[in-house]
């Protein structure tokens, strides 16, 4: 696992699990990598991993099953798509739009280019 400098590592750990779900690598009912595996393979403090996982629990993306680990909830993907969609609309799209404007790209021109 390679971490980048543009985000705190716990966010990158969280986003990594999210991408596994969005890309269908992991499905509802599947276990996510244990804190230990994630920490050892990623070279990350286990507390950092726990913190990232706790956020996923708070978002109802994963659930703790006592003694077994963390599992992906039934509605996880639907929930994530909703979140990611809103992230795109509120964060990424305005930036893309700004960038297109600064480059003088016409929106219709953009849409015709699939």
């Amino acid at each position, binding site marked *: 696992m390679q*971490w980048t*400098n*543009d*985000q*705190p*590592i716990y966010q990158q750990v969280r986003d990594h699990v999210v991408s596994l779900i969005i890309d269908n690598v992991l499905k509802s009912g599947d276990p996510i990598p244990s*804190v*230990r595996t994630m*920490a*050892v*393979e*990623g*070279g*990350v*403090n*286990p*507390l*950092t991993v726990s*913190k990232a996982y706790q956020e996923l629990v708070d978002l109802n993306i994963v659930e703790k099953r006592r003694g077994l680990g963390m599992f992906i909830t039934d509605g996880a993907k639907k929930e994530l798509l909703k979140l990611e969609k809103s992230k795109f609309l509120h964060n990424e799209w305005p930036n893309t739009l700004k960038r297109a404007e600064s480059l003088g790209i016409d929106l219709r021109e953009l849409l015709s280019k699939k």
Partner: protein
Amino acid sequence: MNTEVVIKANNISKKYDDSYALDGIDIEVSKGQIMGLIGPNGAGKSTFLQSVLGLLKTEGNLEVLGLDPRKDRHKLLKEVCSITDVAVLPKWMTVAQLLRYMEGVHPSFDINKCISILSRTNIKLPSKIKVLSRGMVVQLHLSLVMAINAKVLILDEPTLGLDLVYRKDFYSQLIEDYYEGNKTILISTHQVEEIEGVLSDAVFMNQGRIVMKDSIESINKKYLELRPDQKYLDDAKSLKPLHQRTELGRSVLLFENVEKEKLEAFGEVRPPVIANLFMAIMETTKQGDLK
């Protein structure tokens, strides 16, 4: 949260001739912390680590696992394990002999674990230590230390002279051990970017003093770096950045306790990497000294 204090240092000083190598250091390390000592050459990192191990006489109050390392070094060495940058192993022994020797003298040494760690390297048990390369000697030393079931690990530049692959391997092994053994680790290194993700706490040192100490979590909350769009540069500056530098022609402003949303209006916002934060803190404290 378990807050059992493992290392307690109050006003630790060490004077050589006229200059202080350590000038009133206060550090508390709690069980389960992985604390990184970060600082330039001559900051006092090694001196402090050596005093924790009882290898140096210092002034001030020092307790490690409730013992004074200056008086109870022998008792302490059962629970504390260390790697220093001047690792020396007996050249005339073979690796196998050294392992058996360790098993004989150290009550918490696990020879099977050591063999299993060594099996991941190119080091062969029948080899004499004198034929091993410098990097391999470091690997061997690390393997010995990792096979000791200690409560506290003191690592002084542990990966000096190791290649990238083995360095990664070493930190994985370290975290695995840490996870299983509920250990406390104190580590110093110049390669900050390598241990950044591993640390729970960071201590910045310079010229025998502590410049800053904080948990990584709190550092991530407090400090943000802004790369402002050129047109917003003056607006961004009016928010009173702690420090300012240029990176390949672009301004990078470091802010303390300014909301992310406020900064995002002016450009790209990221958390600073520890190395950059360290440079910034060092420069601002220098300015402070001049005032």
